[in-house]
């Protein structure tokens, strides 16, 4: 299957629903290493995401992703906005000109999203950040594309990998952001940012399977 413009919108809307359903958990997780406002920030970020969708009238996939990225960057919620926003803006760079993505171009878009985000942070896997969920997700999607999997299967594999990555942060010691200064005290709780990314990936997978056709 190929993904068209409306499939991407459905993916992103499902992702926003996932955050909405879990925002209090995200805030609770953040309270172990930060201010306890990550859930509220993510809720506002998803409001920005919807704004980006509504504001895009051109039907261009690149415009959609750029508008979402810029809107999320404007969330004024610390590191979350620029990081998450840059992921969407990065995806725009590889958005197919005909606004239809097969599994290979989808994987390339996710890879470009990560590349763009990585220009802003030096966080690596193991540092207890959103990178711990994002990299496994992006890599699983690339692997599934290489094996020629169908998009719903590939995105489900990405979601599973992202969830596993987020879960693995539980035993990690934070090395970035505000939480790093807590050191060992944050061990035992998964990272809020990684959990958010995992939820977004679950939403992407759901959005495609519920909208397949």
């Amino acid at each position, binding site marked *: 299957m190929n993904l068209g413009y409306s499939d991407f919108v459905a993916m992103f809307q499902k992702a926003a629903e996932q955050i909405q359903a879990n925002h209090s958990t995200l805030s609770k997780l953040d309270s172990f290493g930060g201010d306890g406002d990550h859930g509220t920030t993510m809720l506002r970020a998803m409001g920005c995401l919807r704004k980006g969708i509504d504001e895009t009238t051109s039907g261009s996939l690149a415009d959609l992703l750029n508008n979402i990225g810029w809107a999320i960057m404007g969330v004024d919620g*610390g590191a979350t906005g*620029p990081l998450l926003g840059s992921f969407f803006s990065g995806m725009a760079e590889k958005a197919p000109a005909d606004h239809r993505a097969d599994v290979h171009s989808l994987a390339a878009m996710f890879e470009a999203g990560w590349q763009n985000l990585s220009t*802003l942070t030096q966080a690596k896997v193991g540092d207890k950040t959103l990178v711990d969920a994002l990299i496994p997700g992006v890599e699983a999607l690339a692997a599934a594309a290489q094996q020629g999997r169908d998009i719903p299967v590939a995105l489900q594999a990405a979601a599973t990998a992202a969830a596993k990555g987020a879960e693995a942060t539980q035993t990690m010691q934070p090395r970035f952001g505000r939480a790093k200064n807590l050191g060992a005290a944050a061990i035992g709780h998964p990272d809020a940012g990684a959990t958010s990314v995992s939820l977004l990936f679950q939403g992407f997978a759901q959005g495609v399977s519920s909208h397949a056709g």
Partner: protein
Amino acid sequence: MAMKKFINSPDKLVSELLEGFVLANASKVKLTGSNLVVRTKPKSEDKVAVVTLGGSGHEPALSGFVGFGMLDVSVPGEVFAAPGPPRLIEALRLANRKAGVLLVVLNHAGDVLSANVAMQMAKKENLNVKQVLTHEDISVPSRQDPKDRRGLVGCFPVIKVAGAAAEKGYTLDQCLAVAEGMERNMATLAVAVSGATHPSTGAVIAELPEGRMVVGMGQHGEAGCGEQPLASADRTAEIMIEMLVKDLGVKAGEELLVMINGVGSTTLMEMYLVLRRVEQVLKGKKIKLARSLIGEFLTVQEMGGFQMFAARMDKEMLELWDAPCDSPGYTVR
């Protein structure tokens, strides 16, 4: 959660606080665009503009330093959270001029990310902006690895001297050199005795047991270099000034600016006791306390404790520090 604060709705907290802030200081500051704080009487275009960004909840920082001889534009974020790149680039476009713009960034993850994105855009748009990063908290790693050092109250003296330099007609490169000169020669250490509540979420920031203090706690309750029994004013002053002097490598005969910045609920009375002992310790080392300042410049809600700031000063820095300024948070006549 139990929170004793006079607020209306967490969603509107920042915009409402800004409304009240400009009402209270109408002769000095006003709001423009998407809640950017600017001077009521703008600086002339032939002088360098100074801009900063940062989370709210630290009043009077940072918007309280907008005014003559200080900042031209401040971009306030949500409570304890940096504003995003869109509003920062809006501020940089607003401030942009031939003379140039100096952007002061405190070393916190969100602020740095927003600044990086906005600086990339500024470059593409050919805006004339240079950036200085403040990272003077000595509680965490060593001076050799300053990336991990947080920006605490030191942003205020950096803004003060850079703002004075801009007002005197220094070029952008000269203003940057002044800001970096202050940055290189300053150090801050915080001590906390009681925590605070986050005014939007009600979350407890840094719970501290009775009779204990933490030296090196960050301005969002980030852990520092050690919890210990609460000490006297004299003993606390000794611990802290010794660490600052050692970190800066201050030698006999040199001159220091020392500031005691109350973070919320510590009284002026206590801070006077602390400063008194600081001067005695310095005298013992034949270091001159050239200037001192006590007050609340960067707060953390109702947290108890203070940040002790020290900077090595030379003749030029002292002149810039003494130059007149007029902002809601600090005035020199």
